[in-house]
């Protein structure tokens, strides 16, 4: 459970902090075909309004468009993200994923940062040159050579294959993009829980624009997250059913083992309801003891691996293709433990019913003779 939860949380964190941010604002229709003419003309002033919200951690407008990246031997379609480097660093952790070179830094003109997968495909390295074929706002085709200054590797191999980053000023100049405009604005919040609230606020503040939360921007993650939740539910359900049978078996053995004792208690005048309560209490205490031991073991194990991580690099490519990191940090919230303890008590009581009823239905005279 912790493992699956940790993977999902990381995937969500990774998507938010590398790719989408918590909220994205763009012109309506932009995401349909990434038409450069669907732009936010007053992106700078909108950015100023957004920054005034206390829940907002950082804002970064950027230009985004499709292009063709070519080298001597290969060419491929890519998505160019033209960013203000400082602002982009505030909304995205991508700069921490650079494995070769740097994430910009020395203001060279026409520098580009690309993904490892793309670099491998184009057979390029740091200092290599890539020719980008672009369309200007007037609809003309233009070409520009970019120098690779950095290569990044994230947990998402698709992202690495498709996304490239250039400086905003370079692309603005190349395609004659309006200076205060942007294709989209990425917003990073201080708390993920504020996404819905802020999204609704921005929708009402900017009705002519499209405002989307990360769940909509990364539907795959949302689907996988809810799939993992459902799997967890099934998983826990199966374990609880097994627990119930285990409890029934154990308590039935305990009752049958003490047939004489229970028979004696019924003979001397202990009320069947008291015998029933005795068996049920024993069941609950035994289950709680087991739950406590299990919880301690689980908390200890999860805590350890939450710090050290579980290395799945042997599964590397497969995990990355789904957007999962190869290093998993298991995690479980307190709420889960509380729910589990309650469920264990409920299952214990249900499981204890049959043995308890068996105990009180004994014939005392036969039981006391061990029959």
């Amino acid at each position, binding site marked *: 459970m912790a493992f699956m939860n940790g993977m999902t949380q990381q995937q969500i964190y990774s998507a938010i902090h590398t790719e989408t941010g918590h909220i994205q604002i763009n012109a309506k229709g932009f995401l349909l075909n990434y038409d450069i003419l669907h732009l936010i003309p007053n992106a700078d002033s909108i950015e100023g309004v957004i920054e005034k919200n206390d829940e907002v951690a950082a804002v970064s407008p950027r230009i985004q468009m499709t292009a063709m990246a070519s080298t001597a031997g290969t060419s491929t379609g890519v998505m160019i993200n033209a960013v203000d480097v400082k602002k982009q660093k505030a909304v995205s952790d991508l700069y921490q994923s650079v494995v070769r070179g740097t994430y910009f830094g020395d203001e060279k003109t026409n520098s580009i940062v690309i993904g490892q997968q793309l670099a491998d495909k184009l057979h390029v390295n740091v200092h290599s040159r890539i020719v980008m074929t672009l369309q200007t706002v007037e609809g003309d085709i233009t070409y520009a050579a970019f120098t690779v200054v950095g290569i990044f590797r994230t947990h998402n191999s698709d992202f690495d294959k498709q996304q490239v980053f250039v400086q905003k000023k370079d692309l603005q100049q190349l395609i004659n993009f309006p200076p205060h405009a942007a294709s989209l604005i990425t917003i990073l919040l201080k708390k993920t829980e504020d996404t819905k609230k802020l999204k609704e606020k921005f929708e009402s503040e900017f009705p002519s624009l499209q405002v989307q939360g990360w769940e909509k921007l990364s539907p795959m993650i949302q689907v996988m997250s809810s799939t993992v939740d459902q799997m967890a539910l099934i998983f826990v359900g199966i374990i609880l059913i097994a627990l119930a049978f285990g409890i029934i078996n154990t308590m039935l053995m305990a009752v049958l083992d003490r047939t004489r*004792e229970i*028979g*004696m208690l019924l*003979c001397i*005048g*202990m*009320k*069947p309801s008291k015998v029933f309560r005795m068996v049920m209490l024993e069941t609950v205490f035994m289950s709680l003891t087991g739950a406590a031991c299990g919880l301690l073991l689980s908390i200890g194990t999860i805590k350890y691996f939450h710090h050290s991580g579980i290395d799945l690099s042997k599964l590397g490519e497969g995990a990355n293709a789904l957007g999962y990191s190869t290093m998993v940090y298991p995690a479980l919230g307190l709420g889960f433990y509380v729910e589990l303890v309650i469920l264990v008590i409920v299952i214990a009581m249900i499981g204890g019913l049959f043995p308890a009823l068996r105990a009180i239905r004994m014939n005392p*005279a036969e039981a006391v003779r061990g029959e």
Partner: protein
Amino acid sequence: MPVIEVKKITKTYTETVVPVHALNGINLTFERGEFTAIVGPSGCGKTTLLNMMGGLDKPTSGEVIIEGTDITRMPAGKLVDFRLHNIGFVFQSYNLIPVLTVEENVEFIMELQHRSKNETHNRVTQLMEAMGLPDKLAVKPKYLSGGQQQRVAVARALASKPKFILADEPTANLDSVSTSALLDLMANLNEKENTTFIFSTHDQRVVDKAKRVITLEDGKVIGDSNLISKQ
């Protein structure tokens, strides 16, 4: 008034293909202070008769009246309570609770009766002195001999101040020394405190000690030393 009246008791078990008539119209009366042994071959109905008298089983027909109260028509819940306050049991296999000490085993029944801690403690101390085991209060049953365990069982049966004690083959698992000691103890209690004891037994030593011997065969009373002596 007699302590126990058994009136035309029959018990037939119909679970088998051929019904088993365990008891066939038994009539018996037991007075306070009796020290009675019920004897007979295996399967003659001794234990079944004791179960009827103890309210552990219901007869197919007939009545069991304990000091004027017909327990055969009593609802199950009331019968449990009646047993708790009126009938003491001593079992062949002692049936002490192994996780409790001697003191806890004896006071257990008084806790079921909701007696005060003071009364309980005093009674336990008094009984264990009578049993000759005053220094065994804190000991668990597994550290006692068979004879000692059975004496603790007798103490437990007496703790609730019952009208009579039913003992089903109480000496069956004891050696001769322990048997003698136990029988002497019970006879002493019978003499001094007028405690009524009714045994089912195969043990000749019990029969020899008993003031009254009832012989059963095939679910019928074929001998009663009480009747013989009255004659």
